[in-house]
């Protein structure tokens, strides 16, 4: 048996050197961590969601810690796609890490305009559509909680962009399967799930909301069971669609759990804040696990969870 397990993963048209990526919004544009983390070892970086024009984001306070997690309402603050292409991408490319760009918008047209600018750029391996964006036409409701809207966005971007397309799904739905199906049918090559879980926090002493926007997105260890559940359900319903599992991954064991329920790769978010090297630590833990368990490749682990004996 090969002593070095094969860490490469193939997600539809997208081949990655290994299955451990940093999640959008939690690793900046990668450069923020370049002196602390060996970026070139990572499976990929999904950069902070980009909109057409720069966005200031929500008023503070934007974050608050909760049991085993945190709530955020950053409000898609970003430099805009032009600044990314001119000033950030050329520097990030130097590190040789696969770059995935997260695309956001308040309208279908904005999603398309951003994607169109990115599709011609050098050094981007895929686009990820952030479907948790507030939809301007529907009073700020997330695009991703409606199957038709999801399909509209994905189809529109698909027709204007040749890059592998990832649709990132929201967990804030009654049933994620029809939405996953709609995204796939509209042309998404890969699905990533989950984005943050809606929540809120209150201060009993001051009797006030803890976030300026009142509600926010819950992330971190606390959401792992929810994320595993959604990944497993989508994998059951659409076994041929490559999935990227996201939500509450803090350790390599967590990452293995996502692979077992059907994810072909994982993204790590909040844990990067706690330990900047989490992606590398998870990757090394995964590699040791494959060696000791005598599993030849990551690929052979995917979706192999079994019922309790």
């Amino acid at each position, binding site marked *: 048996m090969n002593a070095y397990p094969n860490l490469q993963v193939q997600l539809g048209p997208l081949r990655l050197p290994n299955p451990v990526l940093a999640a959008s*919004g*939690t*690793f*900046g544009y990668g450069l*923020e*961590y370049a*002196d*602390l983390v060996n970026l070139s070892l990572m499976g990929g970086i999904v950069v*902070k969601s980009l909109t057409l024009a720069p966005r*200031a*984001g929500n*008023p*503070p*306070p*934007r*974050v*608050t*810690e909760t*049991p*085993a*997690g*945190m709530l*955020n309402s*950053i409000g898609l*603050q970003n430099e805009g796609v032009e600044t990314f292409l001119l000033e950030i991408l050329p520097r990030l490319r130097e590190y040789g890490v696969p770059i995935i760009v997260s695309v956001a918008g308040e309208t279908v047209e904005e999603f398309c305009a951003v994607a169109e600018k990115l599709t011609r750029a050098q050094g981007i391996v895929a686009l990820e559509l952030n479907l948790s964006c507030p939809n301007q036409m529907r009073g700020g409701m997330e695009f991703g909680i409606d199957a038709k809207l999801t399909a509209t966005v994905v189809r529109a971007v698909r027709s204007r962009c040749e890059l592998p397309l990832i649709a990132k799904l929201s967990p804030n739905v009654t049933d994620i399967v029809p939405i996953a199906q709609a995204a796939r049918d509209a042309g998404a090559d890969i699905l990533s799930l989950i984005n943050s879980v809606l929540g809120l926090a209150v201060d009993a002493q001051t009797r006030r909301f803890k976030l*300026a926007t009142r509600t926010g997105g819950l992330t*971190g*260890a606390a959401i792992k069971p929810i994320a595993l559940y959604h990944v497993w359900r989508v994998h059951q319903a659409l076994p041929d669609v490559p999935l990227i599992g996201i939500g509450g991954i*803090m350790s390599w064991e967590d990452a293995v759990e996502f692979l077992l329920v059907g994810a072909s790769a994982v993204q790590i978010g*909040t844990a*990067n*804040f*706690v*330990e*900047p*090297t989490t992606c590398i630590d998870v990757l090394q833990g995964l590699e040791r696990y494959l060696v000791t368990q005598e599993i030849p490749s990551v690929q052979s682990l995917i979706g192999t969870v079994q019922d309790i004996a």
Partner: protein
Amino acid sequence: MARWELLATVVEHRRRAPEQYELILHAPPIAEAAQPGQFVMVRPLETHAPLLRRPYSILRANPDKGIISLFYAVHGAFTELLSLKQVGSSIRLLGPLGNWFQPVRGVQRHILVAGGFGAPPLCFFASRLAYSLKAEERIIILAGARRRDLLVGLDEFRALGAEVHVSTEDGSHGYTGRVTDLLVHQLENPEPAAVYACGPNAMLKIVAKICTQHAVPCFVSVETPMPCGVGACLGCAVRVALPGGSQWFRRACMEGPIFRAEEVIWE
């Protein structure tokens, strides 16, 4: 801007007052690089609750001994974990982070306004400032808190030979009232001054206003939650005014924690 993620050893854990402690940590590269006003992200244990690191201002740094000091008051689960740390145990640190206080040139008085537990970075600043002070310059400390037992660093400030004025809201020590009253009094004197402040944002807002009124340069170290400390999450946003009248958010962990008072738009 050099920074390190490392495992620091607890050299000493000193009780300064009831529920107030100083953690002295062996972390040579951080001690070497640290500038007054900078902070470190602290992770006492590998727990999921509390999950995130917390930012702590550096109270003092001794590059020769390779140590830094952090001040904390026990309040909630995170600081309770910190308080259990024994000498010889280790703590993960990431730092030094953020910008730092730089003395304004050409003024006679450096006025440091310390609100309660906001004093630590100003202690560090005062100690470095004392070394580089010109003959015509002096340091004035205005330290305020709600009660006497919430005042931090008075002994350190006095040991530097600084002029120290104290206020408490309940009158248990010094002037009865707010530290911002002491500032107004200081600025009635026209002798050129610069103000450096750290404390609750409500205090900083008033300090900023007073300094604007007196046309005195003022730097404030703001307090925000900080999930990452390295500019990646945008959770530490501070609203600032841009030239031309528009607004944007800056990151307290990167472009701050110290801002020019007139650029901050207080929430």
